[in-house]
């Protein structure tokens, strides 16, 4: 059997570098290797290119000033910088508001802060992954140093109302940060028109290379750098600029703007087709998160009574790449914190599969996936002790009853 052409539907994990991005970067490894800070022509050309890249990122984010763009090494660094800066700049404020479904880049940091004596308010979500803004209003006070809430969830694509939440924070004088790593490049963002103070971007989610990120810091927001040293990024992030990657990110930002309409219409239609195609033939499967309000590229489907890693392995055998919130794939033994936070029952939480598309995804690929999934699900259900002839066993807890459980 020849290996089938691979289909990559794991773009929320990372994306392929756009060939135009790579092409734009290459000279900055060789001829244009200079240090932008140097007083000679080697450095000067790099400085000009960095300025152009900064302007492109500014445009993608709809930021008012290009000096609001701070290049970092990744989304995680941007998240850490934002939260720690807010705490350092306002030492009298000892509370942070976030949500239970953030990326570990925020959650793990908050866990650590908690150990160091800070109070962390983690907003809960409902069964569709939505926040209750009344809960939010209750904990918002002048004791809070920063609110950090993601724009779109990486597992389900579900949006949080960050524009509204930033206004609520602003009204009581609290800084607002959003991890927009999954949103930037996929949806229109116009920061100048919002009250968002800080926003994190990661290059590798929008067809730029890995290891480049951005922290947007609104003009006038009190800021304390994570890394001190040279005067790069106006002293807000020391360390010689990663010129090739910044330039690559500039090109990626430009390409993302061009593709935004395609993302909103075509990619979304493919995603909807994929979901509908699978759900039409696979019983006991459902979409997780909020289907009405989410990223155009993300489909997260829970397949009951089977386990995600097994699904991924069988998909992978057919050249299809996706990811799962199952415990087994992460080695963490517990299914994804996002699925548990939404109260997805264990019968389904272990069997969630995330398909995340990109502007390169084709209709033919989606059709192949729609054809591939149902037999895989059926095959695994046939092996499952929770599945009978034509459906789940009547009472899974009783039908399968280990002596010691």
């Amino acid at each position: 059997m020849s290996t089938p052409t691979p289909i990559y539907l794991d773009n929320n994990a990372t994306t392929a570098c756009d060939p135009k991005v790579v092409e734009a970067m290459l000279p900055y490894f060789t001829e244009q290797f200079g240090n932008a800070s140097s007083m000679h022509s080697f450095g000067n050309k790099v400085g000009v290119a960095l300025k152009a890249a900064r302007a492109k990122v500014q445009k993608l984010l709809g930021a008012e000033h290009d000096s609001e763009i701070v290049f970092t090494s990744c989304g995680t660094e941007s998240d850490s910088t934002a939260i720690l800066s807010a705490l350092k700049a306002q030492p009298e404020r000892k509370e942070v508001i976030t949500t239970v479904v953030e990326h570990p880049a925020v959650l793990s940091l908050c866990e650590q802060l908690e150990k160091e004596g800070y109070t962390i308010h983690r907003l809960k979500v409902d069964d569709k992954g939505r926040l209750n803004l009344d809960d939010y209003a209750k904990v918002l006070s002048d004791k809070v140093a920063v609110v950090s809430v993601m724009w779109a969830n990486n597992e389900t694509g579900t949006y949080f109302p960050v524009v509204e939440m930033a206004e609520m924070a602003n009204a009581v004088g609290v800084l607002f940060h959003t991890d927009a790593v999954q949103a930037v490049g996929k949806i229109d963002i116009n920061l100048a028109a919002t009250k968002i103070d800080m926003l994190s971007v990661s290059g590798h989610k929008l067809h730029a290379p890995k290891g480049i990120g951005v922290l947007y810091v609104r003009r006038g927001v009190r800021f304390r750098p994570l890394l001190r040293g040279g005067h790069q990024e106006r002293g807000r992030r020391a360390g010689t600029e990663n010129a090739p990657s910044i330039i690559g990110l500039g090109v990626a930002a430009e390409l993302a703007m061009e593709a935004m309409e395609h993302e909103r219409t075509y990619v979304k239609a493919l995603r909807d087709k994929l979901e509908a195609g699978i759900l039409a033939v696979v019983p006991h499967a459902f979409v997780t998160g909020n289907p009405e309000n989410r990223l155009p590229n993300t489909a997260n489907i829970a397949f009951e009574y089977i386990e995600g890693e097994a699904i991924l392995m069988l998909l992978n055998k057919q050249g299809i790449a996706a990811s799962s919130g199952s415990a087994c794939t992460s080695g963490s033994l517990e299914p994804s914190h996002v699925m548990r936070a939404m109260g997805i029952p264990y019968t389904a939480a272990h069997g969630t599969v995330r398909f995340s598309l990109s502007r390169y995804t084709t209709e033919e690929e989606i059709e192949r996936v729609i054809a591939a999934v149902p037999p895989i699900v059926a095959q695994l259900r046939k092996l499952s002790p929770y599945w009978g002839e034509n459906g789940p066993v009547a009472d899974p807890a009783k039908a399968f009853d280990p002596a010691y459980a």
Partner: protein
Amino acid sequence: MWDYTEKVKEHFYNPRNTGPLDGANATGDVGSISCGDALRLMLKVDPVTEIIQDAHFQTFGCGSAIASSSALTEMVKGKTLDEAKQISNQDIADFLDGLPPEKMHCSVMGREALHAAIANYRGEEWSDDHEEGALVCKCFAVDSQMIEDTIRANKLSTVEEVTNYTKAGGGCSTCHEPIEEILTKVMAERGETFVPAGAKKAKPAVAEAAPAKLGTLARIRKIEEVIAAVRPTLLADRGDIELVDIEGKNILVNLTGACSGCQMEAATLAGIQTKMIEALGEFVRVVPAAKAQAHACASHAHGG
């Protein structure tokens, strides 16, 4: 992606003996859907000879859970119940040319299902095994007895290993303290001291190396002595053993003759391994040199 061996993948993609078994007279259910894996083992046992004539399984779980179940059904067929009872979780892992450490609990689940099925056949309460232990890990319902037995059988020495083998401690992690207490107790039985993973080494490096730890040469000599001691038994069975290499904790050997068949080999190696551990006072693994080779190749071929 996990670095699964070819054999794990093969058993996952083409699982043997799946689905309900007609005429089954023994069933063992372990695990639960909330844990993320569950296994039902069904056996057809000859009432006169107690030989397992057929074995089937149904599994909810990841790739290695399905592969371990499939392997188990192949391993038990043709064995008497008493013989089957000797199969350890390590034997199941070995049959599959190894499992990633985080997946060892899949082989533990296999062994448990087997014991549950045998108890079921004999009309015994398998759950009795578990009554003594207090529940330690609430996330995965693992009790102290189970943790103790697994530490003892596999000579575990860290909380991480306990989690890999039993799942205990892999959820909220609030039970790491009681797990450390059990480790301290069981390791003391075998003359070792439990060292917490995060603990600063208080003693200076020189003092640390001192107690009981053998020098390289003494260690090799001890290993050779054990090999020499087991050879006569193997020779009597028309087999032989040869020391090939020592790579850290792995002692590579060549087994030849009658003992190089899969299951007998595993049993033989396990016996030699126990003797090695006793003689050296440290945990080592005795592995067939050929297999170690295959392992190395496999992990290069599909990393990442």
